[in-house]
């Protein structure tokens, strides 16, 4: 890693520490991109890229991203689960970058479930 980048990291540390002092890291939404072999083969990495880009662009700090394994519905991949705190998780199927953007902007940010892409409601088993 280059010297300039290390300087950039130090700047991020100073800035983020100042931000954190203002709002004590609340987590409002958890977004899970299913990253099993089936998900990866179907395009989950591009979906993850889009999601990270959207979070970066919108500047929100209360959205947590994570990955999980296959839940046995490989033909519906890529799958994304959106869990708004205190609400039932919503699972979206056949997610591509365009769907991911729409899900992020409408559901994650505005709380409006994107019914046309919904596969299921509720929790699953992944192992």
């Amino acid at each position, binding site marked *: 890693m280059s010297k300039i980048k290390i300087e950039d*990291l130090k700047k*991020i540390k100073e800035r983020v520490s100042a931000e954190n002092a203002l709002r004590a890291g609340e987590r409002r939404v958890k977004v899970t*991109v299913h990253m*099993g072999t*089936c998900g*990866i083969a179907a395009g989950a990495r591009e979906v993850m890229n889009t999601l990270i880009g959207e979070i970066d662009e919108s500047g929100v700090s209360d959205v947590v991203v*994570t990955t999980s394994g296959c839940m*046995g519905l*490989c033909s519906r991949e890529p799958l994304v689960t959106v869990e708004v705190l205190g609400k039932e998780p919503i699972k979206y199927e056949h997610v591509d970058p365009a769907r991911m953007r729409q899900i992020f902007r409408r559901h994650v940010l505005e709380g409006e479930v994107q019914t046309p892409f919904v596969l299921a409601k509720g929790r699953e*088993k992944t192992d």
Partner: protein
Amino acid sequence: MLELSLHILDIVENSTRAGAGLVGISVEEDRAADRFRIEISDDGPGMDEETRAKAVDPFYTTRTVRRVGLGLPLFRQAAQAANGSFSIRSGARGGTTVSAEFQWSHIDRQPLGDMASTLGTLIAGNPGVDFVYTHLRDGAAYTIDTRDIRKEIGDVPLDHPDVLRIIGDDIREGLRNINADQ
């Protein structure tokens, strides 16, 4: 899967889900010897000999939600299709190493693809795990070690969007500098 970087993502996800804390990803391109080698090693719990032997069988999986496990078989197939070889070393005492070798110039050798996205996805999904990615190309080297980054950012998480962006930029730039296959 059409890129080696997608296989790498898949195999490293195995490591993190098995509880690894440190995963090494090494890519070696030696064009004089016409070899392209990928090695992924973790400090996870490892596999006993019976499990290791079954791991490349597509009809073996530790999961209960489906009856097939294709990650390692697909990676092995990608190596074999490119006049290469594949091996898994593991001990019941811990640690697993998956190695795949390819003929660099083989028409069926998949391109490496987008390693910056693979690392970004791995870090975003597993911010507690450390990754060391080393890429050698004909003697030139690029390395990124998330333990070094953690030292600089203190209590800022590794998956903070600004940190992920810097890591992605560094990988893209570093691989361009050594002319790595993409």
